[in-house]
């Protein structure tokens, strides 16, 4: 049943991936001819030199070798100083005899490339191309340096005790941020290129001993199956490779903290990193990956569990408070203590709307304020808070448009939703809240239970890269028991079994 569904999908995807990767072998291979002038002209044409100012070529004669050479590079993507010092200077100013160009160049990475297309591809990413007369290949020298931010504090996922570094837009810096936490030879980084025109690179990082083969292959085939022209960054990539694109619930985690990514790698997950995105993707993701925050493990045992408890309470409060209010006051008034009931009835005497409309109005305005708060330019930021509080709270109650109890309910549920750290899950919960509200308005407690069961059924049948969404709670896998609450670090002995890692125990391998 579920298995068959999964298998079908996988077959479909890998078919697709085969299709797209088959293309490249069809084109005719263009190789470098030994003729310098011909190649240079070819390149000039390709890059529309000299009208394209962002393409430079430097012609010179290699000293002691008495050959002419041309260096191509794209100035905006390269490190000019490196080119000067490591490539041009040694070649021009060298005193000794050069037989092998590669030994004369002081750059850290250099290789020979015979196909023009591939060379052009590398040139586009910021490497320099050295053509030497008479040689039928070009040398690709690594000189890439693009402008960008430096490593800063994380903005969305803040912690109290954890490291305060976050990813930036450069993939190699990101990889270095992750790698410096795991210094092992099993740490593997694979590169894939996607996007027909933009040629973006995707880096897949995993621990070769720990990651599961199945998930890895699944990730790779899905990425390979993308057939768009340009996939600029991770946020776009996610939407291409997630399991259910129209689903309300996120199945791939995006994190901006390298320490979180590193801990996932150690548990056997697969990380995807791209240039131009200060995020990393974690696959497979279960519900618990979204629910946990990095801070939980950095705090002490009791503090961490306390935070988790608060978080799960906040989740329930956000989801259920508005709908419970409607269900109880409209359908099940006997549940309220008499005083509370009379207080609500008294407050609602003057209000013109039915309770559910009132609640919907306030919820909508609250959500609007929230969205505005995210987009508002920093100078006028605080005014939003004041305006919001004034308009909604005070004036509304004074004008008897809304009753004070509803304001409390909405404020409570809105504030609690901030306790969920992950952005995607946050949206999920906010939207589900409305669904619950409508269900409660229709059928009271029965409606709420219906909605809840529907959600539960949906969650248990959801799979993220082949792993059930509620694992390890539902299909019972051996794991570290780190679901709603966590254990003492010394007691977390097992890796999550659902990632099908090869080494289940976290304790040191005794040899």
């Amino acid at each position, binding site marked *: 049943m579920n298995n068959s569904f999964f298998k079908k999908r996988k077959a479909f995807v890998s078919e697709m991936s085969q299709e797209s990767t088959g293309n490249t072998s069809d084109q005719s291979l263009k190789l470098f001819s030994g003729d310098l002038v011909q190649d240079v002209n070819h390149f000039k044409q390709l890059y529309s030199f000299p009208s394209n100012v962002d393409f430079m070529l430097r012609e010179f004669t290699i000293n002691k070798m008495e050959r002419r050479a041309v260096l191509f590079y794209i100035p905006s993507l390269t490190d000019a100083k490196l080119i000067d010092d490591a490539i041009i200077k040694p070649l021009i100013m060298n005193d000794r005899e050069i037989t092998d160009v590669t030994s004369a160049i002081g750059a850290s990475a250099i290789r020979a490339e015979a196909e023009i297309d591939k060379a052009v591809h590398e040139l586009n990413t910021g490497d320099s191309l050295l053509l030497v007369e008479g040689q039928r290949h070009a040398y690709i020298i690594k000189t890439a340096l693009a402008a960008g931010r430096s490593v800063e504090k994380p903005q969305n996922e803040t912690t109290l005790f954890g490291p305060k570094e976050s990813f930036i837009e450069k993939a190699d810096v990101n990889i270095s941020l992750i790698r410096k936490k795991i210094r092992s030879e099993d740490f593997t980084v694979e590169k894939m290129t996607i996007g027909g025109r933009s040629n973006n690179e995707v880096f897949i990082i995993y621990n070769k001993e720990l990651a599961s083969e199945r998930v890895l292959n699944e990730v790779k085939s899905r990425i390979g199956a993308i057939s768009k022209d340009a996939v600029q960054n991770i946020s776009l990539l996610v939407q291409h490779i997630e399991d259910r694109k129209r689903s309300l619930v996120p199945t791939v985690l995006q994190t901006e903290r390298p320490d979180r990514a590193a801990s996932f790698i150690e548990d056997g997950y697969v990380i995807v990193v791209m240039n131009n995105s200060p995020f990393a993707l974690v696959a497979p993701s279960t519900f618990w990956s979204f629910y946990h925050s990095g801070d939980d493990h950095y705090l002490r045992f009791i503090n961490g569990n306390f935070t988790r408890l608060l978080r799960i309470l906040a989740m329930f409060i956000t989801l259920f408070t508005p709908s419970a209010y409607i269900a109880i006051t409209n*359908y099940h008034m006997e549940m309220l203590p*008499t005083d509370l*009931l*009379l207080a609500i009835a008294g407050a609602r*005497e003057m209000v013109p709307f039915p309770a559910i409309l009132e609640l919907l109005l306030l919820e909508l305005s609250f959500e609007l304020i929230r969205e505005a708060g995210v987009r508002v330019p920093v100078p006028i930021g605080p005014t939003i808070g004041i305006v919001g509080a004034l308009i909604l709270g005070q004036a509304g109650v004074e004008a008897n448009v809304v009753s004070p109890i509803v304001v409390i309910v909405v404020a409570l549920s809105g504030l609690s939703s901030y306790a969920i750290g992950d952005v995607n899950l946050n949206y999920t919960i906010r939207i589900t809240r409305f669904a619950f509200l*409508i269900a409660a*308005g229709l059928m009271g407690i029965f409606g709420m239970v219906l909605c809840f069961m529907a959600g539960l059924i949906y969650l248990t049948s959801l799979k993220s890269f082949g792993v059930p969404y509620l694992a390890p709670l539902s299909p019972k896998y051996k794991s570290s028991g780190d679901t709603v609450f966590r254990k003492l670090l010394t007691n977390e002995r097992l890796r999550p079994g659902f990632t099908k890692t090869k080494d289940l125990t976290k304790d040191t391998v005794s040899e």
Partner: protein
Amino acid sequence: MKRKAGSFLFLISLILLLTGCWDKKEVEERSYVVAIGLDLPSGLDIEKEQAIDVTFQFSNPKLNVKGVSPSGGEEMKDVVSLTAPDLVSARNMANSFVTREISFTHNKVLIVSEELAKTEIFYRLLTTAFKDREIRRETSIIVTEGMASKFIEKNKPEMMIRPHRYYQFLIDRATETGLVPESTINRFFAITDGDADLFLAMYGSYNKQKDGFQDEDQYIAGQVPKKGGNPVQLIGSAVFKEGKMIGKLSGEETRITRLLDNTSNIRDLFSSFQDPLDKEYKIAVRIKKTRKNKVEVKLRNGPPEINVTYPLDMKILSVPSMVNYAEDIENQKKLKLALEEKLKENAEKLIKKTQKEFKTEPFYWSLYVRPLFSTVKEYETWDWNNKRYPYADIHVTMDLEITGFGKQFRESDIEKVID
């Protein structure tokens, strides 16, 4: 195709949402009844037509809104009475002049007049009224001396607290002091259907009778000499046998009943007894029951023998006679004996009364008879109620412990003070 079906469903559910559903009623669209009163219909012969007078007291939510001051005249509008075939149909009939849907969900009390309680129809009405989903089993029953409607009307709680709070506090407090019994509908049904004990309901009155001064708990409702406060009083109990009221018990008797009954809890019992060493004065004590009674029923060929052990803890609170009880062990012993005697006497008096007058016991002792039988048939043919109890041989043993003497254990020497 799927899209269209989906949007169609969505539209339908939107319609449902806006028109409201079948059960949805806003909070302010209902009127919450706090007390229900039942009377014999005036001017109608109950033999010929089934009818009762129903009184509803509504709670007024306006009084809860801040800034609105309650005026005395407002409360009158909250009490309505009408004549109807029974309780459930009265609900809809009242809608001819009450604008909102009447809801019983927060009803706390059912007030019945004495006359109605003495008729057979009361039991019938109550059992069938119970089919309505909104009447709950923990509503209390109060029997009043006069008309229930007058009782509700005259009920003006002190400090202007809302009526529902009044009843809630009243019932809780009264059951704590033991002056009235616990009388929920659940107990009523359990006992009446079990057909083996008496059911005691709270007894109230709004008339003042001038009967003179007695011991504080000898009163029945209406006799408490007081001025000011609420004209309505609740003391004592009405005795029901098989669904019909057959008599009354005074406050003290009710207290003793509650002490002898293992299923009720008393917290705060203050009482006074004659001081054994100085007959002019009375000692005030605080009684607590911390252990359960032991009731042993022995089956014999003739009437059964019942041995009751009745443990109490007492704290001596005030000794106006200034006799030194705390330090003098001899005096303590005398006091203990005297108190035990008095308590035993009271208990036996009450038991005799129930045996002769009511012919059944209100102490729920049938629970102790039950383990002696192995099937229900045997138990019922043995008929504890009518055949056995009135002739039973009952011995009461007191087990009194004086646990303390209050804050001040020694009174001042009055001779030294007055000189």
